[in-house]
C-alpha cells in the first residue's frame, strides 16, 4: 500500500540575468527563487489498484512519482510504500519496484535485448528459474520473440517500449510506476501496451501508477484518477464520477433522411451543422435525450444517431479551469 501525507517538494531555481552583461552578473550575484513543485499532496493507494496521474506539464506529477521511487527526497510530508521509506530504504524498496520513465531507457543501448535482461537478472538477484518463467510469460504477452536478439538501438520506439516494460517486470515486482509509457507511440503500439497493462493489473494484482498526457490511457485503464495541478491534488476519484460531477453535458450526432431542421430547442448548442447532419451539445438535466430526439424526429425523419458522453479532454479542461479559478 502506498501512503502519501502532505508531501512537498521545493526546488531552488536559479534566476538568470539576461544578455552578456547579465551573464557576468550571474557569476557574482546568484539569484534564486523557490518553486513549490509539489505542495501538500496526500493520497492512499491500495494493493492492486490502477491509478492514473494526470495534470499539465510542470504540475508535479513526475516529481511526486520520483519521490515515491526514492530518487528524490521530499522537502516536507512523508511517503511510505508498504511501510518502507522510499529513500532511506532505497535498496529494499527498489527491489520490489518496476519503473519505466518515458524517454529514458534502462536497457544497454548497443547490446541485444536479451543480454540486458540477463544483466538485470543479476542486478535484481532474481533466481534463474523465476526469471525464465517470467520472461517466457511476458515475452509471449508482448510478442517479444524476435526482438530479444536485436540490439536495442535498432528497435522502433514501439518495440523498445514493449522491451522496456518487460525489463521493468522481470523481477516480478508487486508495484509498477510508469511515466508516460505511451508517449509518441502509434495506435497499434499503444493498444498493445494498454492491453498488457490491464492484464498485469487484473491477473497478477500488480499495483500500477501511471502518468500520462493521453487521457484515453486513463479512460481505458484507470478506474481511479488523480488530477494534479500546481503541486496539489485537484481531483481524486473515478472518471465516471468526475464526469457526472463536472458536467451533465452530452453530445448527440444525428443524421436525417432529409435536410436537417433549422431550429433546435432552447439550451441546446449546435456544434456542427451540415445539410443532413447535426452535432448537438445538450444538458441532460435540462432536456433528457429521449425528449430531444423526439423533438427532432417531429421535424425531420431520422436516419441514424449516436449519443456520446463528454470527452474526457473537456472534463479535464474544465477541472483545470476550476483549479485555476480557485
Amino acid at each position, binding site marked *: 500500500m502506498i501512503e502519501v501525507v502532505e508531501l512537498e*517538494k521545493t*526546488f*531552488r531555481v536559479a534566476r538568470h540575468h539576461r544578455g552578456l552583461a547579465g551573464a557576468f552578473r550571474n557569476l557574482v550575484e546568484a539569484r534564486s527563487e523557490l518553486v513549490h*513543485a509539489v505542495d501538500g499532496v496526500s493520497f492512499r493507494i491500495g494493493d492492486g489498484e490502477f491509478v492514473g496521474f494526470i495534470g499539465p506539464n510542470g504540475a508535479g506529477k513526475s*516529481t511526486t512519482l*520520483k519521490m515515491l*521511487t*526514492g*530518487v*528524490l*527526497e521530499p*522537502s516536507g510530508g512523508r511517503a511510505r510504500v508498504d511501510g518502507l521509506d522510499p*529513500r532511506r530504504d*532505497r*535498496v*529494499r*524498496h*527498489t*527491489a520490489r*519496484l518496476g*519503473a519505466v*520513465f518515458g524517454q*529514458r531507457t*534502462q536497457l*544497454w*543501448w*548497443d*547490446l541485444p535485448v536479451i*543480454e540486458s535482461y540477463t*544483466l538485470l537478472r*543479476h*542486478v*535484481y*538477484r532474481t533466481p534463474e528459474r523465476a526469471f525464465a518463467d517470467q520472461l517466457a510469460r511476458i515475452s509471449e504477452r508482448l510478442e517479444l520473440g524476435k526482438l530479444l536478439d536485436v*540490439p536495442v538501438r535498432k528497435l522502433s520506439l514501439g518495440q523498445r517500449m514493449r522491451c522496456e516494460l518487460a525489463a521493468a517486470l522481470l523481477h516480478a515486482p508487486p508495484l509498477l510506476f510508469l511515466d508516460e509509457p505511451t508517449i509518441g507511440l502509434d495506435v497499434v503500439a499503444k493498444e498493445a501496451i494498454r492491453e498488457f497493462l490491464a492484464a498485469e493489473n487484473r491477473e497478477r494484482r500488480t499495483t500500477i501508477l501511471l502518468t500520462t498526457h493521453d487521457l484515453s490511457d486513463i479512460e481505458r485503464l484507470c478506474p481511479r484518477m488523480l488530477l494534479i495541478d500546481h503541486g496539489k491534488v485537484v481531483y481524486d476519484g473515478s472518471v465516471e464520477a468526475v464526469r457526472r460531477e463536472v458536467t451533465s453535458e452530452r453530445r448527440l450526432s444525428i443524421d436525417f433522411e432529409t435536410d436537417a431542421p433549422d431550429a433546435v430547442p432552447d439550451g441546446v448548442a449546435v456544434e456542427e451543422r451540415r445539410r443532413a447532419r447535426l452535432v448537438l451539445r445538450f444538458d441532460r438535466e435540462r432536456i433528457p435525450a429521449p425528449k430531444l430526439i423526439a423533438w427532432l424526429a417531429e421535424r425531420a425523419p431520422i436516419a441514424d444517431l449516436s449519443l456520446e458522453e463528454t470527452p474526457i479532454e473537456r472534463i479535464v479542461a474544465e477541472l483545470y479551469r476550476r483549479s485555476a479559478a480557485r
Partner: protein
Amino acid sequence: MLDGLRLYLRLASAGLRAQMQYRGAFVLRSIVDFGVMISDLGPVWVLSSYFGHLDGWSFAELALLYGMVSSSWALVELGLRGFENFSAYLLRGELDKLLLRPRSVVLQIAALEFEARKAARVAQGLVVAVLACIALRLGPASLAWVVAGIAGGVLCFAGIVMIGASVAFWTSGETAELQNTLTYGGSAALSYPVSIYTNWFRRAITYGVPLAFVNYFPALAALGRTEAAGWPRALPWLSPLACAGVLALGLAAFQRGLRRYESAGS
C-alpha cells in the same frame, strides 16, 4: 562484497561487449593507446640520457617512478572509468536509472564505460616497474615498498576521480577537465622526482593533493634514500594513510553530492 564484485564484472563486461560492436573504432583506439604508451616513456629517456641522470636519479630509478605511478593510474582508469565521465552522465540525467536499482550506486558508476584496452596500460606500467626493480636489484623490503606505493596510488587516484566527479553535483557542468588536470596531469608530473620541482609546486603535491605519497616517498624508501633527500625517515610510512585519506574524502564527497542530488532533483 563478493556478490558486488561479481555484478561489477558483469556490468563491466557488458560495457565492453557494447564497445566491441563498433569494431573499427575499437581497433583504432587500441592502436592510438599503444602509441601513446610508447611515447610516454620517451621524454624520461631523452632527459636522463642527455643529462646522464635527473637530479641524482638514474634512468632505472626514473623508470621505477614512472612504472609505479602509471600502474596506479592505469588501474584506476581501468576499474573506475565511470567516475571519469560521470559529469556527462549526470548532465544527461541518467543517474536516476541507477538510483532505481537495488544496488550500490558507487558500484554501478564504477562499472560504466569499462574499457579493457586500459588493461594494456596497466601491463605497460607493471612491466616498466618490474624491469626497473630487476635493474636496480631491489631486495624484498624494497619490493614491498614498490607494491605498497602502487596500491596507495590506486587509492589516491580513486579518491581524486571521485572528488572530481562529485564536483559535478554542485556545478552541474562538465568536470572532466578538472579531473584530468589532477589525474593525467598528476601522473605525468609524478613521472619525475618531486625534488626537481619548484618549491610551491612541491608543497602543493605533498601537503595539498598528496600526490607525492603515491610514488615519490615509497620509491625513496625502496631505494633507501629518504634521509638523503632531506625528509624524515618515517615519512614514507605515512603514504598508505595519506592515500586512504584521499579515497575516504572522495567517497564522502560523492555521498554528499548524491544526497544533494536527491534533494535537488534533475
